[in-house]
C-alpha cells in the first residue's frame, strides 16, 4: 500500500525546472532510495515533501492527506520526520535536548503549564526525557547526552539527528544523504541502522550518493536526472538499466 504518493510534481526556480513532472509512490514498510547525479533535484524533492519549499504544481499525498499546501510543522505533526544533508543541530543545546525537541509534536505543554510547572507538565517532561534517553541508547550515543551537540564528532551528530527524527515517532522518515561525510565503517553501520529503523515499522525514503549503501539496503530505487525521473525499480534492475548507466558513466 502506498504511504506516500507523488503525482506530476513540478518545482520551477525562475526558468530552471528543478523538479519536472516527477511521480512515484513509496509503499509502507519499504526502504526507497532516490539517486541521481549532482543537481538532479533530489534535495529539492525532499524539501517539497517536507514542506520546506512550496511545489509549483502537482500533488503529494501522505496517507489520506494532501501535503502540498501544508507548512513544514504541520507535515511533521502528521508523522513525517527528516534529517538534513548538512546536519542541522540546534546550537547551544545538548544532544539530549536536541532529541527532546523531536518529542515536540508528541507532547502538549503550553506556555502557562510550562511557566507554572504544573504536575501534569512535570510528568510529561519526565516522559520526554526518558523517551529521548532511550533513543540515544538505541543509537549508542547515550554517553554524549549532556554534551553540546555542535561540539560532537560528525558521525555522532548524524546519530543525534537520527535520534531526533525518530523521537517524533514518524511513519515516514526522510534521510538526506545519511552517509555523507562518513567513512566506510560508519557507512556500513549507518546501513544497518537504516535497516533497523525499517524493521521498527518506519518507512524510509532516502537520498544517497553512496551506491554500495543504496544497492545494499534499498527495496526500490528511483533515479532522477535534471529534475526528471528516468527510471524506477529494484536495485538489480537499476544496475542494469542502460539509461542509468548512461547518466552515471556517460556514453
Amino acid at each position, binding site marked *: 500500500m502506498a504511504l506516500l504518493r507523488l503525482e506530476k510534481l513540478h518545482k520551477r526556480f525562475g526558468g530552471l525546472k528543478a523538479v519536472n513532472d516527477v511521480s512515484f509512490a513509496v509503499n509502507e514498510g519499504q526502504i526507497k532510495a532516490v539517486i541521481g547525479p549532482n543537481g538532479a533535484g533530489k534535495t529539492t524533492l525532499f524539501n517539497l515533501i517536507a514542506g520546506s519549499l512550496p511545489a509549483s504544481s502537482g500533488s503529494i499525498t501522505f496517507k489520506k492527506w494532501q501535503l502540498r499546501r501544508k507548512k513544514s510543522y504541520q507535515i511533521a505533526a502528521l508523522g513525517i520526520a527528516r534529517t538534513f544533508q548538512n546536519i542541522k543541530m540546534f546550537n*547551544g543545546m545538548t544532544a539530549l535536548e536536541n532529541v*527532546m525537541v523531536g518529542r515536540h509534536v508528541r507532547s502538549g*505543554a503550553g506556555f502557562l503549564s510550562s511557566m507554572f510547572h504544573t504536575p501534569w507538565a512535570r510528568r*510529561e517532561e519526565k516522559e520526554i526525557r526518558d523517551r529521548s534517553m532511550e533513543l540515544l541508547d538505541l543509537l549508542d550515543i547515550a554517553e554524549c547526552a549532556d554534551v553540546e551537540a555542535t561540539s560532537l564528532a560528525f558521525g555522532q551528530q548524524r546519530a543525534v539527528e537520527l535520534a531526533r527524527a525518530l523521537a517524533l515517532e514518524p511513519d515516514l522518515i526522510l534521510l538526506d544523504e545519511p552517509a555523507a561525510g562518513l567513512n566506510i565503517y560508519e557507512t556500513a553501520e549507518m546501513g544497518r541502522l537504516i535497516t533497523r529503523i525499517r524493521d521498527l515499522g518506519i518507512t524510509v525514503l532516502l537520498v544517497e550518493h553512496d551506491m554500495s549503501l543504496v544497492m545494499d539496503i534499498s527495496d526500490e530505487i528511483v533515479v532522477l536526472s535534471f529534475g526528471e525521473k528516468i527510471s524506477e525499480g529494484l536495485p538489480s534492475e537499476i544496475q542494469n538499466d542502460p539509461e542509468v548507466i548512461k547518466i552515471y558513466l556517460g556514453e
Partner: protein
Amino acid sequence: MMKKYLPFLPLIAFVVCVHLLTSWTGTLYYLTQMTMSAYYALLIIGLCVVMGYAGQISLGHAGFFAIGGYLSAALTTRNLLPFEDTAVLRMLDALGVLMKGQDIYGEVIVVITPWAACITAVCVAALLAFFIGVPALKLKGHYLAMATLGFGIIIYRVVLASEYFGEADGISEVPPFVLAGSLAVSGDFSERISNYYIAWVLVIAGVVLLRNLIDSRVGRALRAIHGAEDAAGSMGVDTARYKLHVFVLSAVFAAIAGVFMTHYNGSIGPSEAGVMKSVRYVAIVAVGGMAHLWGALIMAIILNFLSLRGVFGSYDDAVFGLILIVIMLFAPNGLLRINLRSKLQAFFSRAKRAEEV
C-alpha cells in the same frame, strides 16, 4: 527540585541585605531607585526571553511599558462623572470597577479602580503586541525590529499629542494601587520598604516563571528556533506561533512593569515612551548576554540604578548607546560571559613578549 531554586537564595539574600544595610546606614532613600530599577528589570527579563531565546529584537518595549503606565494612570485619574447617566457607566458601576477619588482641587471625581485599570492596560498591551507580531513574525529576519520601532514612535507621538494623556506634562496624581489590605503600591515615604519588597517579589516571581518556561517543552522549542529555524519547523515546531506568543508574553511583562511603576511614582511622562528607552532596554539585555536571564537581571539593576542616581548625568542616553556599541564589538555574549582569565592571560603574555623583545 531544590536545586532549581538554589540560585534564588543569593538573590533573596541580596534584596534583604540591601534593605538592612540602607536602614542601618540611614540611607533608605536608595531603596526608591532600587524599587524603580526592579520594575525596569521586570521589563528587561521579558525582553531577554524574546531576544536571547526566540532570537527576535523588539525596539518598542518602552511603548508597551508606556501603554501599561499611561492607561492605568489615565483610567484611575480621569473623571467619569460627566458620563454618570450613560449605560456604559452604569454597567461599569454594576461590575464594581468604579471608585470615588479627589482631583487636585479636592473635587469629588469618579474613576476606574486600579485593579480594573491594570487588567485593561495589560490586555491592551497584549492585544497590540499580537497585532504587530502576527504579520511581522511570519517573516524570517528582523521585521519585528522594524515594526516595533514604528510602533514605539507612534505611541510616543500619541501620548505627546493627546490631551487625554496629558501631552508633554504626562499624568500625575495617580492614586495608590491597593493590592490587599494595607499593602499598596504608592510613592508614600512611609511605604517605601513595603514597596521595595513588592517590586522584588514581582521580579523574583517573573524570573521563576521565565526560568520554568525556558526549561520546558516551550523553552526548548524557542531555543530550537534560535538554533536552526528550518530544522525546528521540520521537527513540528510552529515557529511563527511560538515567536508570537513569547513576544506577547514579554509585552505583558512590560505593561505590568509600567502599571506598577506609574502607581509607585504617582505619575508618568512621555519620556517613558521614548524610543531611546527601548534602545536602552535592548542595550541592557545585550550587556547581560542575550540568552542569559540572570545576566539581564543583574545588569538591569546595576545600570538602571546608576542611571536613576544620575551617575551618567546628561549623557544618559549617549552612555547606553555607547554600551550597545562596545558590547557588540568586544563582548557579543555579554559582560558576564567574558572569559576574564583567558583575556588577562592573553594580555599578560603579550606584555611579556613585548618585554622580551
